């Protein structure tokens, strides 16, 4: 039985091998290599070299692990560190988890379809796959956040990752994850499948920081399945250059009284093409989705901020918001919101505003003593201040700090 089902997945993937993604520039995966030499695992996270430490800090990984309950670090397609300090939560490399627990396969390709496009197909067909499995046990609460870093250190490498995250009933899980490249790496491909499962009355907060290079192509594929009373909070932050990035997570709010909140902070630089969105299917009664994106466009960057909310159930509430700040005449920001009211008794709203910093605002701040650059920085800094009200108190302040680090980071 098991064998057949796996073969079916493989076959479906094979059929989708050439399937272009519905949005985003098409990438020729064959240009990238997955050749990687064997290396050793890190014994202690504190022992990482200064260079690596700096890379990790830029994407939110605390090498001291002071207020962390676990850490997962993947270099290329090799797990170099995987540890957890709490017995309420389990962190394993995905390959280990699939071996250890027969039920894990039931969560494999259940929130994201294997034949979504060539990138999901690649993740099924590659023989060089890693990723993390995180399981917050029933009732697990009050544990420090878990952190992970997916890191690329080989020129021209394709990193293929498949993550499964499960929050059991009444548990609360906070994740900080950073995806990045070594400063000497230009050309790279990151394909990341992430499947989130939120059981009854659970909560996941997922803060993701991306830090890429001028020639990185990035195609995350994320799906979230939510049971009754669960809450999913996503904070996505990208402040670095990237060649092309396209991501459009989808949340299925299946249970009644579920909530999903997506926030994206995007700082478009140089020639970056960034296409980020989120989608929510409000299938449960009283389910609620909110999507906020704040985009800054500098240089010749092109940013598309998407959002889709589908109201399928009684009393579903959806709100989409996009704010854009253009700092260069060559930058471009597009907002593409879509709200669909399928059920007659839903409330769906969206608002968007994109513009430049008005001169009168700069002058007003200068009249309080700031010079022009300081005035601009204050406005931009304020613009990038995240709404952290959905995060636990301890994490809220830290997230703001991470954003500051990310916005200033120069590797």
């Amino acid at each position, binding site marked *: 039985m098991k064998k057949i089902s796996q073969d079916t997945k493989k076959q479906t993937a094979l059929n989708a091998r050439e399937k272009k993604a519905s949005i985003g520039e098409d990438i020729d995966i064959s240009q990238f290599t997955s050749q990687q030499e064997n290396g050793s695992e890190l014994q202690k996270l504190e022992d990482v070299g200064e260079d690596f430490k700096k890379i990790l800090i830029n994407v939110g990984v605390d090498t001291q692990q002071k207020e962390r309950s676990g850490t997962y670090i993947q270099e290329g397609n090799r797990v170099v560190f995987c540890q957890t300090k709490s017995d309420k939560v389990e962190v394993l490399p995905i390959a280990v988890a699939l071996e250890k627990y027969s039920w894990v396969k039931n969560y494999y390709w259940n929130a994201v379809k294997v034949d979504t496009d060539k990138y999901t197909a690649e993740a099924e067909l590659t023989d060089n796959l890693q990723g993390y499995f995180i399981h917050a046990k029933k009732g697990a609460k009050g544990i420090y956040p878990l952190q992970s870093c997916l890191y690329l250190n080989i020129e021209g490498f394709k990193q293929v990752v498949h993550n499964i995250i499960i929050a059991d009933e009444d548990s609360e899980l906070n994740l900080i994850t950073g995806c990045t490249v070594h400063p000497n790496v230009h050309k790279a491909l990151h394909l990341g499948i992430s499947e989130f499962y939120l059981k009854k009355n659970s909560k996941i907060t997922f803060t993701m920081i991306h830090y890429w290079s001028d020639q990185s192509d990035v195609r995350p594929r994320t799906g979230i399945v939510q049971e009754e009373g669960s809450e999913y909070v996503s904070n996505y932050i990208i402040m670095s250059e990237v060649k092309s990035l396209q991501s459009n997570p989808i949340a299925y709010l299946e249970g009644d009284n579920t909530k999903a909140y997506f926030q994206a902070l995007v700082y478009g630089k140089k020639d970056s093409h960034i296409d980020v969105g989120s989608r929510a299917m409000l299938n449960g009664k009283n389910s609620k989705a909110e999507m906020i994106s704040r985009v800054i466009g500098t240089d010749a960057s092109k940013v598309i901020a998407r959002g889709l909310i589908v109201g399928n159930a009684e009393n579903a509430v959806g709100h989409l918001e996009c704010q854009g700040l253009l700092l260069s005449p060559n930058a471009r920001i597009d907002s593409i919101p879509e709200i669909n009211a399928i059920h007659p008794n839903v409330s769906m709203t969206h608002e968007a505003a994109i513009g430049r910093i008005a001169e009168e*605002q700069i002058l*007003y701040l*200068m009249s*309080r*003593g*700031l010079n022009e650059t300081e005035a601009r920085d204050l406005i*931009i800094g*304020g613009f990038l*201040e995240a709404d952290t009200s959905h995060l636990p108190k301890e994490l809220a302040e830290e997230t703001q700090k991470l954003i500051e680090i990310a916005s200033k980071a120069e590797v």
Partner: protein
Amino acid sequence: MLNIQNLTVTVNHGNGRTVLRDFNLSIDSGETHVLLGPNGSGKSTLIYTLLGYPSYKVVQGSIFFKGKDITGMPTNERVSLGIGTLFQHAPKVPGVKLKNLMNVCGEKRGERITKEKFEEPLLEEGCRDLDDQTMKIATDLKFPLEFLEREVNVGFSGGEIKRSEIMQMIALKPDFMLFDEPDSGVDIENLVLIGKVMRDLLQRDEIPSRQIKSGLIITHLGYILQYLGKLDRAHILLNGRIICSGNPEIIINSVKKFGFDECKICAANQISLECGDVEGIK
């Protein structure tokens, strides 16, 4: 403190229209003056020119502040010399919290105290840091603290904008204060409050030898003036020129009684009767 000589200003967005002509005004340390004038007489232009806003071009004349020629100086440098403004039309600044802007004002005041070696504490009494000081100022003004978390002027009512402006003035404590229509669009409760703070900031109740701060209050309504105590001098601005200066009480009462129409007669006849006697020459 402030000395404006033969100033002629054109406005870019007004297609190069001349708004101030041959304007002269001198305000000494410790003095508070009032500038009255009808709409369009050039009051706002004077403010923006004093601040050095780029759309306002000085084509002739000079502005001296504390003995320095500031005519071509950028706005922020003028502010760090000690000029502060309460705006009539303060713009919205999305993204910037009022708290952060208040802290900027407090920080700039600290820098000025250090630079000019004033014997003043860097922070208000009993405050440990800028956040503390910002909260104290807000509390003193009966501003709910959650207001500090809001974006500057975004969704503020008229009275809230004025209170935010006056709070920033308190935090900045400049040596020379410009008040642009502090009484427009304000209810009586806020008017009394703003009047009280202005009176205090302008040291109106100090003995003259201890009055150091100076101010220029621009108004066409004049409501605020009754709350300020003794004022030093009033001026009437008409078509970009000061046409009459003198005892504030007499001038204000005269404007209240006759409006600016009488001033126009005065100007047209190029006479300089004691203000209030205009009726006699009709």
